[in-house]
């Protein structure tokens, strides 16, 4: 077992390095679940008669089934329909980032080399990273379970709920262990894992949308795609209703297999390298590369392609489901009616899907803009600003790429949804026109979040990554998908740019909100620019 020598010491190192990050993730998720559970608990304690009809709304509505799996009228289950997907994605990302941080990133930065020069085995860092991520997920499971109990839910269901969310984190610990071997960069490893997460979400969402509803309209039985996804496996534990443990019999062996694969792969490759061979490249830069804009585009193109493929897939699926929405009846109609006024169910469905896509694109923009900070902290910026490129031009290169990328992605989604939606319902051309309009009105809100992130990067460079993600999560939760049902106060909802996005194509687009968002975006951008011009660069010492 020499390959694992020194693992214990590396576990301690990793725990020490993560002493703030992992508790922040775990406590944040716990606090979110406790707060929302307590809120729904109190709401349905006051109006117990509403629980069944509310449950029916989310059961009968395929669009709502995307978010989660419902099993009977339970406050805990209803809360999880709102929270579980987000928590599962967060648990997966926590695990992926932890594993990559202690494996591929350490290699990329040359730290692994220093460690391996000691009495440290070939697999020790991988093993230590996996142990730390698994431990984080166990703590997460316990904390989430405890939180739901504290918020007044039955013990058995609460424990299952915590385990079901942590099981997704555990499965993605295995996924990240493999992707960290495949890609030679931390960014690439995280990207591959995120792609797997997107696929897992798509499969679970598809399985639930295409699932069957029982006669009381209180329970969904998922279709087969859900059974191919770790997110789906977690949902099949059906907390607060069936309380099943056996789906863990899918995710835990899958994790073990993935870990085994990662060890085999790690044994076959050199430190610091991926499994793909290193190819030669062009001896000269093309004119397209030789500008700040071109450089950013080049750095970003693989990521953008990945996002485009993802949004294309989601667009095709959600468009095809338009036919089901049209056939919708019963209580689910009310939800869409609330969303889209009286402009018809389909319009409201498209509006809500477009807004979800808008938020996803906003996440892409945030990842892109955070590279500004990465360039600065890693020292690439030093070489660029040593030439005749001004700080503002550098910032501008990112802004242009963000704008073009966001426009492209949202239009890809709209096109995909229009094509399959048109196939299902007819009238492709006019549908595409409507959806393009609805896509473009997302941009001012995306831009506003992006400009706020730029302000964070320029004002508080060292804290900008964490703060930017916190801000992003907040704006999404205070936005139209979650905000109103979370009972947040209006002023808080108004702080999210997504709250102000018009419900196109369901409703006519007002000029007011677009102008307001555009102005806010511009003001933030100007603030960011003037801050960047004034401050010192935080280059590596």
């Amino acid at each position, binding site marked *: 077992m020499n390959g694992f020598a020194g693992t214990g010491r590396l576990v301690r190192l990793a725990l020490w390095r993560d002493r703030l990050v992992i508790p922040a993730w775990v406590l944040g998720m716990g606090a979110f679940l406790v707060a929302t559970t307590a809120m729904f608990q109190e709401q349905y304690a006051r109006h117990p008669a509403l629980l069944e009809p509310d449950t029916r709304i989310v059961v009968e509505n395929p669009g709502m089934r995307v978010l989660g799996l419902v099993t009977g009228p339970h406050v805990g289950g209803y809360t999880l329909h709102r929270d579980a997907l987000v928590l599962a994605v967060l648990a997966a990302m926590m695990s992926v980032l932890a594993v990559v941080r202690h494996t591929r990133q350490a290699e990329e930065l040359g730290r692994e080399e220093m460690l391996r020069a000691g009495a440290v085995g070939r697999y020790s860092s991988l093993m230590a990273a996996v142990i730390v991520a698994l431990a984080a997920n166990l703590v997460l499971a316990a904390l989430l379970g405890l939180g739901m109990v504290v918020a007044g839910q039955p013990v058995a269901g609460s424990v299952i709920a915590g385990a079901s969310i942590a099981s997704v984190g555990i499965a993605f610990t295995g996924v990240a262990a493999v992707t960290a071997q495949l890609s*030679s960069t931390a960014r690439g490893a995280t990207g591959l894992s995120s792609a797997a997460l997107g696929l897992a979400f798509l499969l679970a969402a598809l399985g639930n949308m295409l699932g069957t509803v029982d006669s009381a309209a209180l329970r969904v039985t998922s279709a087969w795609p859900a059974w191919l996804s770790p997110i789906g496996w977690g949902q099949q534990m059906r907390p607060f209703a069936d309380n099943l443990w056996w789906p863990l019999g899918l995710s835990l062996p899958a994790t073990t297999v993935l870990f085994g694969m990662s060890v085999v792969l790690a044994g076959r490759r050199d430190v610091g390298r991926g499994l793909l061979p*290193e190819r*030669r*490249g062009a001896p*000269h*830069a093309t004119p397209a590369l030789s500008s700040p804009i071109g450089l950013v585009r080049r750095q970003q193109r693989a990521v953008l392609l990945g996002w485009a493929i993802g949004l294309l897939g989601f667009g095709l699926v959600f468009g095809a489901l338009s036919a089901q929405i049209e056939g919708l009846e019963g209580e689910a109609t009310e939800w869409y009616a609330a969303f889209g006024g009286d402009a018809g169910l389909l319009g409201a469905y498209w509006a809500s899907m477009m807004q979800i896509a808008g938020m996803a694109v906003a996440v892409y923009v945030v990842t892109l803009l955070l590279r500004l900070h990465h360039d600065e902290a*890693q020292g690439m910026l030093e070489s660029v600003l*040593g030439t005749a490129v*001004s700080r503002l031009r550098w910032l501008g290169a990112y802004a242009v790429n963000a704008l073009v990328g966001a426009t492209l992605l949202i239009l890809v989604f709209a096109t995909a949804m229009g094509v399959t939606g048109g196939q299902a319902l007819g009238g492709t051309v006019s549908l595409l026109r409507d959806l393009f309009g609805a896509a473009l009105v997302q941009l001012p809100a995306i831009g506003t979040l992006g400009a706020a992130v730029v302000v964070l990067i320029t004002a508080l460079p060292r804290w900008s990554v964490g703060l930017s993600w916190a801000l992003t999560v907040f704006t999404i939760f205070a936005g139209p998908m979650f905000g109103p049902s979370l009972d947040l106060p209006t002023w808080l909802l108004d702080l999210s740019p997504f709250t102000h996005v018009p419900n196109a194509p369901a409703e006519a687009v007002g000029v007011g909100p677009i102008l307001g968002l555009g102005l806010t975006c511009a003001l933030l951008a100007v603030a960011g620019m003037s801050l960047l011009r*004034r401050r010192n660069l935080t280059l590596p010492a």
Partner: protein
Amino acid sequence: MRAAVKLVIEEVIPVATAITISGLVKDFGPRSRALDALNLQVRTGEVHGFLGPNGAGKTTTIRVLLGMLRADAGRVSVLGGDPWRDAVALHRRLAYVPGEVNLWPNLTGGEAIDLLGDLRGGLDADRREALLERFQLDPTKKIRAYSKGNRQKVALVAAFSSDVELYLLDEPTSGLDPLMESVFQDVVQELRAAGRSILLSSHILSEVEALCDRVTIIRAGRAAESGTFDELRHLTRTSVVVDTAVPPTSVARWRGVHDARVHDSHAEFSVDPGELNNVLEHLVGLQVRSMITSPPTLEELFKRHYGEDTVPARGSGAEVVTSR
């Protein structure tokens, strides 16, 4: 007050300076002052060595010269401009090799060289090819696949491919093999012959001695010394080894003598500049049989300026300064 000081300085500065720094202060926090009233002048057309122990403030100074850090106090002028305000215009006229070369791992060396050249406002294609040849650099490899020395060469070729007035080089040869080191020295000599100005921060004393017209030694954020090598030598102790007929037992008590070691009629010690004559008067009385005096070696010179209190006499087994 500031305005008055500034006027005086401007009168003193000759026109032909590439870089002028006076009274430069840079703080990184309430109690961490990186530069403390630093003065530095690089004349047009000279190669100026910039030396000092680790953490002395060399990289910080160069980043202020590039407008990446803002001076907290003092006056800085690069090619007649203000590096903070006129950064872009000035950067068209200078090239920079950073101390730590961090480039984009997924670009090839050739792409990075072209990119940086274009961003500076264009590079000379012939020069680029000639430099690739001389430095034996393969431009088709990805940056992440280069060895440390080859990554350093990418930065050097990128900087030298542009014909500019001023080159700012921060430890430019770290990681180069001796052959490449000599190619680097040749290129710098050629640039100097062509009248270009160069600020060269380095820990390699032989390189500094071979290339630099003048040097500035910085210590704890202040210029400890500045001048040509000869000037610096005059400021430093001379080593003396002497045999006398009368045992030189009182050597250690003479004015200006340090590190004296006496063995029978043999003595080794070092003498402060300006005290040599006084020591000779003493020695005459002891009837000198043989005597060797030697100027300080480079290592001794720097060791003294880098902050060691005592400078051991020659041959005492002192370590050579090779801190990097």
